[in-house]
């Protein structure tokens, strides 16, 4: 088990390394001067020598392998560099924005699980009935609608028409409701689909038929034998879903002006703020690594046949 965990950590570290190398390479090789991207139209007022000086100070005269080596050397010492846009340490920027994104995703995930599992189990329990058709259609519709659009619709309904909740910003639990529900609904759709098909498969297993024959109640059969056996693939999708959620926060945070990492990422990419982009990518990679480890550990609990060596 310990060997397995160490192996996972090592492979995760290699993945993070590769990811940051790819991001570094892509951003460094993107056409256009990063200093011009950072300054925008303000660049037109700068004399050429001052632009050259700013480029030098930002380390833009280095080649991308040099850049990457510089980043790795800093990261090894725990220094993620300085944001080109704000001039502040990347670690400080991450520390300020991480709690908002964590609050958003950690509220949205249970919501997505509750909605996805309930809809999936209900559709499976009434497979090939009108309820199944209705739920499946709703699931497909939700999956097809961009998260951005869902957010705007919820804003129009609950903030503008009903006036129940603030439309944007942060500050209290009421500000969190709409962004978390938007993200939760968007993430619930794939969960509901996998839950439905896994539960239908599980309910067709011979031991479930035997359980029914023994006269167990329909509910007990559904929950103990159907859902429990379906949870392993569901958990896998939930793990992947959390990763997808991290990309969903980019849109949700923009619509609801939620001050998290997603919006910071957009600002950083727009300004080609390489140190900041790399810091956020590294944080995202570490979060995904942690989630996939937790999912693997949860398999142990759900399925006694699973063994890690």
């Amino acid at each position, binding site marked *: 088990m310990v060997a397995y965990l160490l192996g996972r950590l090592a492979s995760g570290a290699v993945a993070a390394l590769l990811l940051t190398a790819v991001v570094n390479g892509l951003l460094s090789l993107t*056409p*256009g*001067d*990063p200093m*011009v*991207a*950072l*300054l*925008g*139209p*303000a*660049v*037109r*007022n*700068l*004399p*050429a*020598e*001052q632009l050259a*000086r*700013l480029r030098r*100070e930002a380390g833009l005269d280095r080649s991308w392998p040099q850049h990457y080596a510089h980043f790795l050397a800093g990261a090894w010492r725990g220094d993620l560099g300085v944001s080109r*846009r*704000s*001039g*502040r340490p990347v670690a400080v*920027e991450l520390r*300020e*924005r991480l709690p*908002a994104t964590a609050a958003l995703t950690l509220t949205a995930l249970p919501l997505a699980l509750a909605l996805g599992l309930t809809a999936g189990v209900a559709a499976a329990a009434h497979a090939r009935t009108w309820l199944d058709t209705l739920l499946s259609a709703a699931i497909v519709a939700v999956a097809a609608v961009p998260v951005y659009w869902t957010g*705007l619709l919820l*804003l*129009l309904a609950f*903030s*503008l028409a009903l*006036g129940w*909740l*603030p*439309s*944007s*910003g*942060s*500050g209290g639990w*009421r500000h969190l409701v709409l962004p978390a529900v938007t993200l939760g609904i968007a993430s619930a759709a794939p969960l509901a689909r996998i839950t439905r098909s896994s539960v239908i498969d599980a309910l067709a297993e011979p031991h479930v038929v035997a359980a029914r024959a023994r006269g167990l109640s329909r509910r007990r059969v559904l929950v103990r034998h159907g859902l429990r056996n379906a949870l392993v693939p569901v958990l896998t999708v939930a793990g992947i879903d959390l990763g997808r959620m991290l990309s969903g926060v980019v849109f949700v945070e*923009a*619509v*609801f*002006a939620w*001050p*998290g990492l997603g*919006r*910071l990422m*957009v*600002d950083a990419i727009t300004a*080609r703020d390489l140190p900041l982009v790399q810091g956020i990518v590294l944080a995202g990679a570490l979060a995904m690594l942690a989630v996939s480890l937790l999912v693997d550990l949860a398999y142990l609990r759900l399925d006694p046949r699973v063994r890690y060596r």
Partner: protein
Amino acid sequence: MTTCRTIVLLAGSWALLLAAAANAQVLITALPVNPTSLDPHRAIEGYSFMVTNQLYDTLVRLGDDGAIEAGLALAWSRPEPTVLRLELRRDVRFHDGQPLDAAAVAASLRRLADPATGARGGFLLAAVDHIDVIDDYTLELVTAAPFSPLLANLTFPATAIVPPDAGEALARTPVGTGPFRFVSWRDGDSVELAANPDHWGGAPALAGIRYRVMPERAAQLIAFRAGELHLIHDLPPDAYHGLADRADAVLVSYPSDRTSYLGFNVEHPVLGDQRVRHAIAHAVDAPLLAETLFRGLALAPTGPLAPLVRYALQEPDPYPHDPLRARALLREAGAEGTRLTLDLATDGDLDSVAQYLQAALRDVGLVVEIARHEFAVHYEIVTSGRAALSVGFWGSDTLDPDFMLGAALHSREIGANNASRYAQPAFDALLARGAALEDGPERAAVYREAQRRVLVDLPLLPLYHHVGTYAKSASLEGERIVASSFQLDLRGARLGADGAGASER
């Protein structure tokens, strides 16, 4: 005991009422981006200046008619053509209590000009050779050669005066002399300011300003409609007219200092022929463009500079729409059927303009392909002379004609801002003369001649003059438009008694 309880209750209620009244005087508005810095010398984009304008003062400022007004400097004079003497107010203190004197102002200007500061606005003082402190409240800016735009340059928000001990910390904990002082900045969320009761211009009526960072236009509009914002800026035509149904919203539009252009690369084998450029100018129906695409929120071009800019030419319809003449000119130049690429940046909201130009030029026999690139790539393409046609805009933030004409069309800017690669020694000479002359009829004549030359040589075709917009809650009154982009003077602004029209839910 009962009396005591009543007194406590009354006191509590009074305190709540006072707090509510104070809160009601907090203006809530949206900022489309998280500011880069609240140090005016290090801020990059205009939206940061929206905040710094309230925190700091400049030496001189622009009034709503574009005239230069007193700021921290009460009076100015030119004892010699190369010397700008400024006399400062005597009753000014920074928010931390430090007095503002000539030494502090000189230190602030030197910081701005020092390349080590990396200030984006350093170019505004490029002509200054040295600064002399004459006495506690008088200083002189000495230029190597006469440079008339210097006073106007001092209206630019990047020249705002910072304390003499300003360092890196100013970016996050700003200290100025402005009508509002800094309270807090929650990164990516909001910036809070409170009224400065000791401001030299008198205490503002507002208790404070809350800027909410809201990148999405749609979300800003919903928040405004939901009564969570008092003020939203810079509305595109659809959003602006879409708010017309709101009885409690006031829509304001005002002429801006910006003009959008179609740039011609005069070194291009086909566009190098002046007849082709003139043909394109006659193919474009600029008044129609302003009226239809912008639904009245743009002005038909009257010359290369927006009408607000000093000495702007006021030629009604300099290139009348005449497709027949355009076709004839193209035929004469042998340019019919030429394929041209039109470059534009993705972030400029210019797609519909580019599509209109594509259609208009097709009508006279030119094939235009539109190439959209992210700003940095677009900039590289146009500055390196690889673009044939390009669309973009220029602002004349200081309202001095030298600001735009010098930056965009002087031959020294080829390879940088002069995307047209226009090199006319006579035009350069006019700019040099204009910059050296005192404001007055002679200077006006020089710049008008320079603009007429632009209309004849046509390195760029003015398409429309921008109109600034904002929507405000009916309870907000007394705000004053400053005749330059991104500035609203809120010193005299107040919120009416009707609950102020915006509230935090």
